[in-house]
């Protein structure tokens, strides 16, 4: 079943025409990786889905329902969790408060706590610490956990590996693979190791356009395609 679909999405930031026709089709389950060099429009695509930016043209549908043009809080309530590039951890809130904030019904966090702690045991030790006191890796785990508090059909995760130590990137890879049975993930990732270790399908964006898509194993073999659109990032390895 198609969970998320973007059809001819055009998005402006101010007067800049950033997305110039993005097409994507994300099936339910698994990890779809969104690749492309810096400035290709990956973050803008995620923001256009969650509703932080409103596409000027085109359609975004979630499980067949149009969500483009809706305010972000309504889109999120349809069952989308968003983990932004800067992680969006609230630094003056404790870990517990950060997670509580994501509840859409009372008691959701309590029901989910065991699963989160199994996924990221570190969180338990920092439960009552302010978000601002966590390391980058811990903040990333908190940001991903926060998207898991309500029952989201879809997670949008923007470059989680950025600035993190290889060991933490491995933990994330493990977590994302675990989550496959629970939800669908759209993962923006420059770290090709993390993309290969978790991705099932891929899309490549270039200059605000979808230029390629397919199954991840094919891309892993196609070094020429990697070099053309992903540049040096493709050579990077986490370990």
């Amino acid at each position: 079943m198609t969970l998320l679909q973007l059809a001819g999405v055009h998005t402006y930031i101010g007067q800049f025409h950033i997305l110039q026709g993005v097409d994507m089709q994300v099936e339910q389950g698994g990890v779809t990786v969104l690749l492309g060099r810096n400035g290709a429009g990956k973050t803008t695509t995620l923001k256009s889905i969650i509703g932080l930016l409103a596409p000027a043209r085109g359609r975004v549908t979630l499980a067949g329902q149009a969500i483009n043009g809706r305010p972000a809080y309504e889109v999120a309530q349809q069952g989308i969790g968003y983990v932004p590039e800067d992680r969006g951890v609230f630094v003056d809130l404790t870990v517990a408060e950060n997670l509580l904030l994501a509840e859409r019904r009372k008691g959701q966090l309590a029901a989910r706590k065991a699963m989160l702690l199994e996924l990221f045991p570190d969180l338990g030790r920092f439960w009552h610490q302010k978000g601002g006191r966590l390391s980058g890796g811990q903040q990333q785990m908190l940001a991903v956990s926060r998207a898991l508090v309500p029952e989201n059909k879809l997670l949008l995760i923007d470059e989680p590996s950025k600035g993190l130590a290889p060991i933490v990137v491995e933990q994330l890879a493990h977590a994302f693979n675990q989550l496959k049975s629970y939800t669908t993930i759209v993962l923006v990732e420059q770290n090709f190791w993390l993309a290969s270790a978790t991705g099932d399908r891929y899309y490549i964006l270039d200059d605000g356009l979808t230029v390629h898509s397919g199954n991840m194993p094919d891309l892993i073999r196609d070094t020429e395609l990697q070099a053309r659109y992903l540049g040096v990032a493709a050579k990077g390895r986490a370990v």
Partner: protein
Amino acid sequence: METPHLTFPLLVTLLLNGVAIGMLYFLVAVGLSVIFGLMHVLNFAHGSMSMVGAYVGLAVFRLFGDPATGTAPTWAFALAILGGAMAGFVLGWVTERFLIRPLYKRPIFLILLTLGLILVLDETVKLIWGTSPQGLVIVPGLSGTVDVLGQPFAVYRIFLISFGLLMIGLTWYVVNKTRIGIIIRAGVQDSDMVQTLGINVRQIFTLVFAFGAALAAMGGIATTPFTGVHPAMSGDFLLKTFIVVVIGGFGSTTGTALGAICLGLTEQFLPWFFPRFAAVGPVVLMAVVLLVRPEGLFSVSGRRAG
């Protein structure tokens, strides 16, 4: 020039006076501070909202008062505070929902809007109540003095301190212990991120604006036994409020409480030690804070709402 000797009982009186005045400043300033922290709107009309609250409060008070003497039963003052607060709440609600909301993406227009609102509110008040100052007689239950270390101390000031502490406590509780408080503190940092968690942050904006104006209105009424009610009070409030918020740090309720008490004490003690600087002291204090610690004396991480 002979300075009277500053005895210990006098020191305590000044201290209590400073705290009592500080409570008034807290009431008026806390809304401005949180509104700016959360919505990045500098509401220049905040002082005018205090003034409107004071006028409406006075009108309610007079409904139950004796026109000849100007006195009214003690409960009439409670109703005056409540009535003024409700007027402030409605005014704040309408202002955010219908005037400010369409302009969030245009900060310059927002400045013009709230500046324009000063004129509208001030002129409306003059139209309804005239330009001459009007007094509010302290009700029987809050009048008179009590003995503090041999010095007479006004009961009304004790009321102010208790009422102010109650309001500080309530604000602290809401901001730190409730879900709305979590949303406010998170929104001060990044309201877009709060939205993406499925929270309609605009509703919270309206609520914060309304409650901020209601608190300011209460501060307006509570001031009237000292200063009377007059159209110039909106400007007085605005200046004091800015000083408090700069000292305390925008967006922080705890900072606002400390900044307000700090200003109250400065105003009480400065005339004793440096009488020449009594008038400019608070403004100088604000300027120094802006230069040395622009995020506010009492803020920990720049912008916060705790």
